């Protein structure tokens, strides 16, 4: 069961799963937003149509080499990160390249995608992009601190740097980490709000201020690739959250039906987690950049510190 062909098949399946689920969540977001706003809204598969259209654009303009390479970097980053995330606990199919130190690895890799976009946007020469990138990096500095604190507190508490071990622990004890270390969860979910870039932290691409920020100059297939990468990243973030704090998914054995049940569990759990940023986004105006950073350095960081103390002294 450990052949290389099996690995490749698993990787492919994971990619397809991440793509489809991520895109559908994008569509669901739009639908739910519309229903909240008293509207009918687009169909849930609207994002797929958008993607096909963007890829089907006849002309695509790129501003220099980096403009061309940036979406590629973004999608490489998201796929790489995806490979290191154990999607299901028991499902060997979706384990891919998980290794013992993946939690630390992820902390580094999750920044990579944004950097690719930043490089591409920098070369377009559009001042909106440049300002958007500087805002994005500033915001990243804001939310990375509580996020790292939260993960570090987990590493201290459970003496592991492996997501798989965290999932195994939750499975064995039957206690989710959200209850074992609630402050780490609070710090992580608040920094997630920043990572998802929905209101109130959508300062990077704020339409009323910066047109659409870093992606102002991307159109056609470049935008489509960015969109795909964004959807996969959304899926990654959700799976990571579920893996770490909600006991992971797929504790039903590695048989076919076990995997299917695991996937269903995964979708349900990730959807619930996804609704947190979506609903907060629906009723919040946008922070200014310095307000956003101040926010991240205040409450989530405080929660992160408490989480570390919690994990050290308990």
């Amino acid at each position, binding site marked *: 069961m450990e052949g290389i062909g099996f690995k490749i098949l698993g990787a492919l399946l994971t990619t397809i799963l991440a793509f489809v689920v991520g895109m559908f969540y994008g569509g669901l977001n*739009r639908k739910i937003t*519309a229903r909240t*706003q*008293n*509207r*009918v*809204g*687009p169909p849930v598969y*609207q994002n797929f*149509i*958008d993607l*096909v*259209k963007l890829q*089907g*654009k*006849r*002309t*695509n*303009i790129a*501003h220099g080499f980096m403009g061309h390479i940036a979406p590629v970097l973004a999608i490489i980053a998201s796929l790489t990160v995806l490979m290191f995330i154990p999607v299901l606990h028991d499902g060997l199919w979706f384990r891919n390249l998980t290794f013992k130190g993946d939690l630390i690895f992820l902390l580094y890799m999750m920044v990579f995608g944004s950097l690719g976009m930043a490089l591409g946007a920098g070369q*377009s*020469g*559009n*001042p*909106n992009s440049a300002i958007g990138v500087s805002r994005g990096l500033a915001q990243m500095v804001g939310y990375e601190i509580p996020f790292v604190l939260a993960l570090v507190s987990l590493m201290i508490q459970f003496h592991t740097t492996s997501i798989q071990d965290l999932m195994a622990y939750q499975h064995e004890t039957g206690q989710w980490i959200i209850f074992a270390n609630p402050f780490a969860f609070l710090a992580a979910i608040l920094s997630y709000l920043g990572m998802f870039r929905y209101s109130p932290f959508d300062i990077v691409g704020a*339409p009323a201020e910066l*047109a*659409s920020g870093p*992606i*102002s*100059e*991307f*159109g*056609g297939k470049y*935008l489509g690739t960015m969109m795909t990468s964004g959807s996969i990243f959304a899926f990654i973030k959700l799976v990571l959250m579920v893996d770490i704090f909600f006991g992971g998914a797929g504790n039903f054995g590695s048989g076919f039906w076990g995997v299917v049940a695991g996937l269903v569990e995964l979708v349900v759990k990730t959807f619930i987690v996804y609704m947190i940023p979506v609903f907060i986004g629906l009723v919040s105006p946008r922070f200014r950049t310095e307000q956003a950073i101040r926010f991240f350095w205040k409450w989530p960081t405080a929660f992160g510190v408490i989480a570390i103390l919690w994990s050290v002294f308990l």
Partner: protein
Amino acid sequence: MSNKINTIGIPSEEEIKKAQIDFSPRCTAAGRVNDKETQKMVEYILNFARKHSLFVLAYGTGCGAIEIPATMTSRYDAERFGIRGAATPRQADVLLITGYLSTKTLKRVIRVYEQMQDPKYVIAFGSCTINGGMYFDSYNTIKALDRYLPVDVYIAGCMPRPESVIKGFIKLQELIQNGNAGNGECYRDNLDWYRTNQQKIIKNWDFPDEYNW
């Protein structure tokens, strides 16, 4: 492909001949990339996607822009047809000319149109884009938009109600599905003709230095 007129505002071939004026160049099927004979299935799928995913550039060029919020929001909800706003011309598919264009705006609109990526569509709002409307004697507004930009759909009225705006979009969707919309190539092929017309009224073609990204 038939020579059937896709818009109401443009006079038919006979009328043009009668009036002895040269109106907008008409693109033939051969000039189109989305020739249905060649890549039939692919084009069908792409056209389906194009039709259901129209990113409208957020550029209120005139007073018709006041009905755009109404069209987009809860009562009329254009998003159910896949119509949504796009912030920059690079991302947009549809350019809405919401009413009269002053010469100063026309210069920007041309710039914006040229920044958009193919296939791109133009919907012109209101009577003032068709024949000048009530500004027929104004020294600062253009009278017939299709002289300066290729127009796909005209929506008559001053100003068109949200219902007619949506009707216009549906008309555009029909045209896209049949492969009759999207005049980007046509514009490029006949660039000389369009440029001559544009330069007749825009005397100052310079943009600020910082504009040239």
